[in-house]
């Protein structure tokens, strides 16, 4: 389910009513223009609140570990939206900046939706000298991604870089959805991706 994307500091009357602490001026609500749209969003947010509340409960059990919390959000939605951060920030009385600090520190956290399939290209030392850069070009080419983009428009593929994934002995390496493919070359990557795009499974190089 895609979270509604709202500008600014989103909030709504419903979640404030649920919150254990009174809304502060800073946490949106009163001066927040978005709050006025709350009524329209109510149906969607109730379902979302249910999910988030469950995550919140688990989080309280875990001594307030932000990484685990963010991980769970990402597992649920595929990425972490500003709304979600704000939601937790209000309830936990932890400034949103603390969340963003953690999100931007770890490359694994995403603030944009990711594709259904993920291709990870290892760019560690061993893979680098065996041509990881060419694999990256080839995969961008095969998926029609421009420079700087990492996800296809149809949200089918995301291409990401990794530092050494510990399989240097079969370098260069790519991982497609947990499956490691070793001793790759640009041609094999292209075939891997085009084959996968058609059949949604690995059908050989």
């Amino acid at each position: 389910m895609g979270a509604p994307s709202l500008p600014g500091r989103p909030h709504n009357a419903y979640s404030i009513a649920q919150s254990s602490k009174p809304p502060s001026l800073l946490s949106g609500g009163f001066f927040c223009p978005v709050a006025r749209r709350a009524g329209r969003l109510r149906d969607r947010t109730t379902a979302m609140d249910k999910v988030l509340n469950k995550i919140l409960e688990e989080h309280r059990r875990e001594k307030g570990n932000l990484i685990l919390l963010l991980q769970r959000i990402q597992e649920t939605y595929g990425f972490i939206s500003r709304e979600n951060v704000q939601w937790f920030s209000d309830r936990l009385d932890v400034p949103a900046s603390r969340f963003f600090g953690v999100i931007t520190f770890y490359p694994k956290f995403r603030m944009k939706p990711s594709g259904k399939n993920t291709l990870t290209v290892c760019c560690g030392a061993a893979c680098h000298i065996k041509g990881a850069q060419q694999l990256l070009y080839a995969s961008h080419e095969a998926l029609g991604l421009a420079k700087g983009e990492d996800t296809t428009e149809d949200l089918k593929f995301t291409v990401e870089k990794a530092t050494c994934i510990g399989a240097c002995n079969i370098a260069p390496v790519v991982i497609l959805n947990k499956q490691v493919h070793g001793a790759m070359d640009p041609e094999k990557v292209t075939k891997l991706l085009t084959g996968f795009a058609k059949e949604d499974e690995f059908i050989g190089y």
Partner: protein
Amino acid sequence: MSTSSVEIKVCLGTSGNAAGGEEVLRLFRHYVFDRAVEARIGTRCEFRKVGCRGFCSKDVLVDVIINGSKTTYQSVKPIMVERIVDDHIVGGGPIPEWMAGDEYTSFHSKQYKIILGPCGEIDPENIDDYIRMNGYRAARKAVTKMTPDGVIDVVTQSGLRGRGGSGFSTGEKWRICRGQKNDTRYIIGNVGEVNRALAEGNPHAIIEGLLIGGYAIGAQKGYLYIRERYHLSVERLRTALDQARDKGFIGKDIFGSGFDFNIEFSFGTESFICGEETALMESIEGKRAMPRYRPPFPAEKGLWGMPTVINNAETFSNIPLIIGMGADWFSSIGTAESKGTKVFTLSGKVKNNGLVEIPMGMPLREIVYSIGGGIAGNRKLKAVQVGGPSGGIIPESMIDMGLDYESLRKVGSIVGSGGMVVFDDEDCIVSVTKFFVEFLQRESCGECTPCRIGTKRMLELLIKITDGTGEIEDLDTLNRLSGIMTASSLCGLGRTASNPFITSFNHFRDEYLAHIRDKKCPAGVCPALVVFMVVPEKCKGCGLCRKACPAGAVTGEIKKAHDINQELCIKCGACYKVCKLKAIKKQ
């Protein structure tokens, strides 16, 4: 007849999997059943998935063991399985042309596998296999028959030093932690990229080591910190941990001694800085992984402010052996100062890429030539980089040095994570250095100034040099920067970040000067300094290069000499690689 047995072992480490190991195993099961092997020749067939045995370039490796005599096949593809079952298992005649040859033997004969030994022999997903190899016996001995101080004494006497970085004495570290007053203590196993095969092939050894360590320092809880991306390692460790828990080796009242110990996973990302011990603790606590100031050291004040011991997973794998076989046995391996063995990932331009375990002090030459089988494509060895991204670059002239903590430190390198990348004469040292600095710059957490700004400036200068706009003064600046970073950075990342530059500058000064003064890249790697040209006399006009060029820079008619348009050329080297006639030259 009923006593005879057939055992089939299929390598299912990361690279075994990547080469189609699952499918090979499935087909073995299928054909053995299909040919009714058990009924026809009265044997019992066992199938075993085993972890990586290091010789990954020839995966999938399959052992067929008939009544104790073992035949190893290499590069087994799914289509080869049927014939192996028919000819060898049913017919009794091995297939020589598919058997692993001399390379396989020489790859293994020089190694000394005390901790990687079981990898490739036992089923990592079956605790009984490990127990059959005396697994958890050392833990039982430690917990029921030895005092915590007794355990620490043995580990100290063995001379074991940390395998993850600085090489600090493990026993000493444990003693400091044990000496603290707090009741709550933690122990952490740091599972890095080089430990991957270990976690996949013999996960119980890590868990047993952690358990013994926990007992020795008086910890109630252990953590396994592992990068999330290592899916297979995570899975195997998780299975192993569950099994150990079922057997009562982990949990309450272990071996009836009243000692309680639990192990939990903590998942990190593959950020390099997360391997640093204090950053790792911040990460377990759910914060940004920024290193802490020391002192206090983690052994005094670590995770959640409590005394914490953190060791590398390989360090922990050594512990059961030391307790089981004794400190004297362990200290008989290696050199005077560096005891035991060390695992390296041998990669780069050697013939046999793989995971190798060698006794400390083995000459680098032996690793590259005897185990690694020499340089691929009959090219010339140029240098070896040891110790991961922040290790030093060791030139060919020094290749007779032994690999141990002291010798490596002397040449400006570290044992580090145990990465080993071999370069041949087609690799440009300046560009390689730039690559490592680029990595370290990206991974610098930004907490302290010398590292944050130092790596950035260093990278800028190296880019300038490889772009052909470098000046002689830049080398002085780089040297000065290196000194400042080493002296004043907060953590190991900044302190070692200049290793690649310092060592490469010391040994390959000419190459730096060629880039700066002559505006030439001797290895023909740096795009700005190299020109690809067709040698008209040699070119037969086959058109291969024209097809290979991604930029459309190569023109020419079939059977006539081709030409490269320098304006369009992006210097990828594709034409150079495909030309069979050596009609393209680099300058």
